[in-house]
């Protein structure tokens, strides 16, 4: 037990180091020049790769010592790789535990479900993170957990928490497009990753991928890959070029050995105004175009996963979504999901689901129904299942007015937040009335605008604060930008953890950020070519319940 405890402490320390490194890298990636940005992302990946290798080796040694039956899913895990799998490889009775992202758009919705009953975000996150590991222990079918006891459960809880911190909810509307994602994890923390990044207010970059390994290894790799994606996608270029850069970063770091079967990714850049999509895949299952009343069409996409060949050239497919059409990305776990008899769900059933997807059914509902139906088969599963859908003119062709978004620009003067707050409140009461979040959102946006005007732009009225809000049916995203240097979010969190000062002079300082931290479901601070950006996510109370 002493060794286990020591190992668990080491794992915790490694996690904290990697998380801190990744956070610093993410922030630095936005602050630094391009070359330095890549170097920073690469450095973080190197740390993650090293730590992941350590975690994998530790897990292997542990498994070997215990003589546990069955393989520990590691770097050699199989992937669909863009082709239809021919056999079921997962029917070995591994544990079945539903974890993050079970409900709502992405993992954060599940992580924050506790807010609905009045508990604070931190409390609810803890409560939810504890859930899956407890369930896993109760199930007792997972090899790593069956002999590991509390320390291993703690490792998994940490791993799950790391992943949730880095997988923001995806449910956004921009222009004529709407992007929604669902991800459900298998027994362990898995390597599925997904993201949607708004570029220049007209392009949405979407990502679905699968990193090798499970547990701690995946928990290390997923945030590092997301950070690399977010930093590289802002450097410009098409998706093929982006994949090339990410591939070189992975291979150049010597991560090839870690990657094993490589990292599969599918990346699309969607022009939200005309529906044009530029897509490139790296060993990832080819996505589909699905239109109501027509058979789904699978794109041509064939290439090696990232991390396999430094000279790999990735092809790019360009197409334009028709009104009402959906662009469907997914991970292999969806089509390879095995039934109780080992029979895979397969592409035929997946395509039938898309063919039967009628107009007017939101992507979120369709994805939930599909994933629920797989679970109703009662089989155990050991791979994550992730779906991401881009809908163009969702619901009804040409009804762009229905897509809700709003932008403000205000001069940086004292009290400038009031105009935005009043208009936002009126809009929310009319359009998001059932969310139960109007006052929280208005408070947070007002505080963020006030901070941006005062601390970002120094109350220089020649400088503007821009505010951008996007509504999904379950999520609202607010971005507040200024031209200042921004602040160190980690320093804020450290100070918060240290507690409040009793010094009179300090009282009230930083309360705006503290309120934002308490009232949002998720927030990040980033910097790009447009300046410093405070990005806040709010989940509808109605959807949470």
């Amino acid at each position, binding site marked *: 037990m002493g060794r286990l405890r020591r190992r668990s402490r080491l794992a915790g320390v490694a996690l904290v180091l990697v998380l801190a490194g990744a956070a610093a890298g993410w922030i630095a990636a936005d602050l630094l020049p391009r070359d330095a940005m890549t170097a920073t992302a690469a450095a973080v990946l190197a740390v993650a790769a090293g730590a992941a290798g350590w975690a994998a080796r530790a897990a292997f040694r542990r498994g070997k010592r215990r003589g546990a039956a069955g393989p520990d899913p590691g770097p050699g895990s199989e992937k669909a790789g863009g082709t239809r799998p021919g056999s079921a490889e997962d029917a070995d009775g591994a544990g079945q535990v539903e974890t993050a992202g079970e409900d709502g758009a992405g993992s954060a919705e599940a992580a924050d479900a506790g807010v609905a009953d009045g508990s604070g975000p931190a409390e609810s996150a803890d409560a939810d993170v504890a859930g899956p590991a407890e369930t896993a222990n109760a199930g007792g079918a997972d090899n790593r957990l069956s002999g590991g006891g509390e320390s291993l459960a703690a490792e998994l809880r940490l791993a799950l928490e790391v992943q949730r911190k880095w997988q923001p909810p995806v449910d956004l509307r921009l222009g004529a497009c709407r992007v929604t994602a669902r991800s459900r994890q298998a027994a362990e923390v898995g390597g599925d990753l997904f993201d949607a990044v708004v570029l220049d207010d007209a392009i949405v970059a979407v990502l679905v991928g699968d990193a090798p390994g499970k547990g701690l290894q995946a928990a290390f790799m997923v945030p590092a890959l997301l950070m690399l994606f977010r930093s590289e996608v802002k450097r410009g270029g098409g998706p093929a070029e982006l994949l090339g850069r990410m591939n070189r970063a992975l291979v150049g770091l010597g991560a090839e050995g870690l990657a094993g079967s490589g990292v599969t990714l599918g990346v699309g850049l969607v022009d939200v105004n005309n529906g044009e999509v530029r897509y490139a895949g790296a060993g990832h299952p080819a996505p589909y175009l699905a239109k109501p009343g027509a058979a789904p069409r699978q794109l041509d996409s064939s290439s090696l996963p990232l991390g396999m060949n430094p000279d790999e050239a990735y092809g790019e497919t360009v197409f334009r979504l028709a009104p009402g059409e959906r662009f469907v990305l997914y991970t292999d776990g969806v089509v390879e999901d095995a039934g109780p008899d080992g029979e895979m769900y397969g592409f035929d059933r997946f395509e039938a689901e898309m063919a039967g997807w009628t107009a007017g059914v939101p992507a979120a509902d369709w994805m939930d129904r599909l994933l629920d139906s797989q679970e109703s088969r009662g089989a155990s599963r050991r791979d994550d299942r992730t779906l991401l859908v881009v809908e163009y003119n969702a619901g009804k062709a040409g009804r762009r007015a229905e897509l809700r978004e709003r932008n403000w620009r205000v001069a940086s003067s004292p*009290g400038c937040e009031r*105009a935005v707050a009043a208009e936002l409140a009126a809009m929310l009461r009319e359009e998001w009335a059932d969310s139960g979040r109007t006052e929280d959102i208005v*408070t947070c946006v007002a*505080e963020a605008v006030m901070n941006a005007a005062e601390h970002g732009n120094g109350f220089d009225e020649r400088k503007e604060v821009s505010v951008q809000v996007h509504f999904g049916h379950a999520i609202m995203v607010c971005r507040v930008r200024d031209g200042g240097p921004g602040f160190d979010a980690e320093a804020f969190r450290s100070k918060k953890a240290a507690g409040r000062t009793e010094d*009179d002079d300090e009282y009230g300082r930083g309360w705006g950020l503290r309120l934002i931290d*308490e009232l949002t479901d998720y927030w990040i601070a980033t910097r790009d070519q447009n300046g410093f950006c405070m990005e806040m996510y709010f989940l509808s109370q109605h959807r949470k319940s």
Partner: protein
Amino acid sequence: MDSALELNIVPFDGGLSVTLKGDLDQQAEQKIRSVLDWEKGLGEGRRYLILNLHEVNFINSSGMALLIRIARTGRKQNFHTFICGASAHYQKLFRMVGLTEYVMLYPDNYAAMQRIEALESGV
């Protein structure tokens, strides 16, 4: 859009009842100071300060910091601060920032007065 703060101060036996109307933000401090210099106490041996926020529609972090400074000063100047009329949302925010460690929250002026009477009678 900014709604300048207005104050109405009504003395009562042992204290002051202050009704605020408008926005409680960074501009509010100067306005309040102009009619009530709380740092010197409430005067005439008064021990209770009721701040009625029923007609305050907007409070930001600067406004909350101001409230807490008043309440903390009250401890040094020997007066108790009561806040009434705050919406459920702002009551939630007051708890988040720790304001409730220094002030007592009541639904309305009547409830605050009842509590003061109880304190005065030693209950």
